[in-house]
């Protein structure tokens, strides 16, 4: 009788008695199955409930220390952060009554350090070299949450990191954002749809497949971008590449030399792309040419023996007004390489506030999580690290680490350090 086209609303005109009884018994059977499964699952859920730590995120928690790092990167006295349900609800102000308080004498609260360019905790290599353009490959699929490296990184203060495909593909895949710990315990992947990874490094050029030279590399990139604009690309690649070409998805471009940087800037201008540059050695030559064409630059990893041109790169980009994030480069670098890199950059002239931002809020923005982590501000996730002094001071160490409001690491008690000049 129904004339609607919607199939779901169609009702059978008439049912025989047998059919009705069959339907009823089916329904009973279905309910019984569901009830059985629920009966089996409830205890498990109950165990899960019981297994969650007593300091779970539901409790309102206050973390207090001597000072904290402001969103601008400066140090301000009397760091007090009130956490509720894993989110920061209050910074500074009075201590609310009836709360669990973790106090750290002489400590400094810092947002959890974010290493945006790593190969941390992966099983196998992060590059699929068979073809040059692989927008659907995801670094998330190589992530091994049981790797021992994650614990080492956590103990150095790194709470979030980006897994980046390597530099040997023109379009290498999607960056994955992961955390070294979580309120539930264990590392986890936050998102597998991070920025798109591109590269113009010499490793892109191979003997046995296209491209074999830079002209082909840039030509291929241009062809792909224009094909996506025209809508004639194969559906498999359409999503990520189209999003990138239309400026909805950020892209990270490895541009070791100044010529690569200029090529990237030109592509970004021409097609309206959102680009972040990685691994540039020629900062001295191109810092002034970027303008606002790029979203940011990732500088590093700066080891203790970094060359002068790399150490000064951060300073030059900041002076040119380009957002700068520092890369840690784990696991080829030591666990505290982010702080070492920040120190090296600071000694080469980067302002200290910019250095603190470069290891916390700027990488969060470049990974696309700028509204969620990376700053100690109301409404952000409670990912905190407590240092025994200025995070930029290599003499200070990690006292405790919080992820999502849960304290996931406490350093073993050691002799307190004296006053530092």
């Amino acid at each position, binding site marked *: 009788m129904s004339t609607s086209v919607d199939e779901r609303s169609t009702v059978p005109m008439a049912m025989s008695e047998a059919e009705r009884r069959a339907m009823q018994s089916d329904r009973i059977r279905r309910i019984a199955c569901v009830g059985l499964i629920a009966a089996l699952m409830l205890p498990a859920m109950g165990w899960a409930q019981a297994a969650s730590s007593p300091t779970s995120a539901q409790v309102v928690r206050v973390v207090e220390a001597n000072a904290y790092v402001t969103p601008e990167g400066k140090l301000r006295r009397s760091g007090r952060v009130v956490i509720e349900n894993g989110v920061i609800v209050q910074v500074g102000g009075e201590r609310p009554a009836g709360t669990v308080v973790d106090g750290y004498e002489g400590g400094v609260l810092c947002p959890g350090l974010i290493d945006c360019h790593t190969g941390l905790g992966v099983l196998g290599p992060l590059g699929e070299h068979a073809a040059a353009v692989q927008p659907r490959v995801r670094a998330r699929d190589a992530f091994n949450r049981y790797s021992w490296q994650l614990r080492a990184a956590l103990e150095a203060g790194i709470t979030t990191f980006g897994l980046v495909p390597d530099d040997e593909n023109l379009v290498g895949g999607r960056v994955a954002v992961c955390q070294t710990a979580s309120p539930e315990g264990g590392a986890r992947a936050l998102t597998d749809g991070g920025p798109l990874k591109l590269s113009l490094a010499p490793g892109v050029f191979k003997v046995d497949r296209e491209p074999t030279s830079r002209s082909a590399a840039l030509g291929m990139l241009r062809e792909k971008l224009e094909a996506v604009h025209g809508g004639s690309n194969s559906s498999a690649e359409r999503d990520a590449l189209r999003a990138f070409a239309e400026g909805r998805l950020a892209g990270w471009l490895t541009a070791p030399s100044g010529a690569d940087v200029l090529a990237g800037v030109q592509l970004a201008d021409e097609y309206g792309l959102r680009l972040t540059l990685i691994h540039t050695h020629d900062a001295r030559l191109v810092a002034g040419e970027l303008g606002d064409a790029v979203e940011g630059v990732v500088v590093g990893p700066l080891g203790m023996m970094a060359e002068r041109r790399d150490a000064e790169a951060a300073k030059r980009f900041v002076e040119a007004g380009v957002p700068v994030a520092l890369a840690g480069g784990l696991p080829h670098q030591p666990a505290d390489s982010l702080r070492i890199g920040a120190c090296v950059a600071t000694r080469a002239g980067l302002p200290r506030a910019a250095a603190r931002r470069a290891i916390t809020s700027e990488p969060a923005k470049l990974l696309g999580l700028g509204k969620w982590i990376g700053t100690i501000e109301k409404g952000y996730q409670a990912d905190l690290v407590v240092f025994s002094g*200025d995070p930029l001071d290599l003499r200070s160490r990690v006292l405790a680490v919080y992820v999502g409001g849960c304290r996931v690491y406490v350093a073993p008690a050691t002799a307190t350090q004296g006053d530092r000049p």
Partner: protein
Amino acid sequence: MFDNRDVMISSVTQHRSGRFARAWWLRWPVLVSLAWWLSGANLISAQVRPLAIEGATVLTGTGEVFRQGTVVLQGGKISAVGRKVKRPLLARRVEARRKYVTPGFIDCYTVLTLRGKPRSGVATARAADAFDWYARDEIEAAWRAGITAVYLPAHVPDGTGGLGAVIRLLPHGSPDDVVLAGEAALCSSVAGRGGALARVKTTEALRRGFIAAREYREACEDYEESLKEYEEQLAARSKKAKADAAKKKASGKAKGPNEKKEGEAKAGKKEEELKKPEEPATDRVNEVLLRVLDGELRWRVEAQDPAAISNVLDIAEEFHLALVLEGATGAHLCAERLAALDVPVVLWSQPAGLAYQWKQGEQGCAAPATVLQDAGVAVCFGSGVLPSRGSEPRLALGVARAIGQGFDEVAALGAVTSEAAALLGVEDEIGRLVPGNRADVVIWSRHPFAPGARVERVYIGGREVYRADGDE
């Protein structure tokens, strides 16, 4: 009197005008040179005039700290250090309020400015000869890190290399000023590559080297003895011959030819052929090893693997050598033995990557410097091997990181200043801000281990060699 004065004045003026009028052209050069000298542009005057750095926090490197202290440099040496030090006459002042003054840091192992390595087994090759005086970029990079003196090694990948040297990073100067110790230590290394068999071979080769040196010494001593004997015998024979000749003379000349012949035959029987003992060939390599055996030269060995380290300790114990360990990432496992044998350790300030730290098995250690220090081993820091040509050493950062891992702060500054100088045997020259030491001084914008600390000025031998850009 009036007349006298008048005459005096006139005579003086006349005299003055006369002489000066004739040599009026002397006036200008005299005035110009006076102006130049006073303006301090003259290097010689800079040496002669003392320099006083005032108002800074002075870290002397021996553990003493002077707030608002003063350091006076004169004649290339430190003449006074303290809180209330009187500024000498004609001294140039450097206002250093809110800044820190330290002795120039000493890098206990670096390959900066080193060009070339010795061949294996040539123990006489000197690192001082491979020092590149004109590597201005690298020397400036070291100054920017506050380093004014370095130890340059002469390593080969495996086995015994050459002689390391202690160099002051002076861009110009006499060799005496620049090369503080041309032959500071013998360098060897026991590499981890090649597996256990290679390590055993290298250790055996080292041991054989020392034994061969001992044998060489014995051979030399034997030679000396036998030479002495030979000379004594020679002297005795000549004396005897003289006595016989005198007897003959005295007893008359009535001797027939037959008797003469008899006498000669008798003399011939008594005299055997006196052979001069053969001198053993001079072996410079063994002579160097002997100096090590005698404790004159230190023996510096680079060994990373704990097994290699214990092999090297065995050798040092056996031959009573003054050993210094370099690199030594596995030293924390033999900390007690190192302390017992009083072996100092030079650690690299550059930490190993995460993947490589733990690759050595479960033997990796998060804070090796602290473990060694707690066991009582003397620890110093060096830059280690540079990863690329443009790398810059950042010694202060490495030490700051060690402090963060538990290293004692007071000892940390000493590890790159006074302790390092003592390790290299040049504590009377550099490494401390005490009167009498060479004037190698660095002015920092903040405490050298604080974040953002920059080197503002570097003085070597009392002369300013580096000034940071943007510094007045």
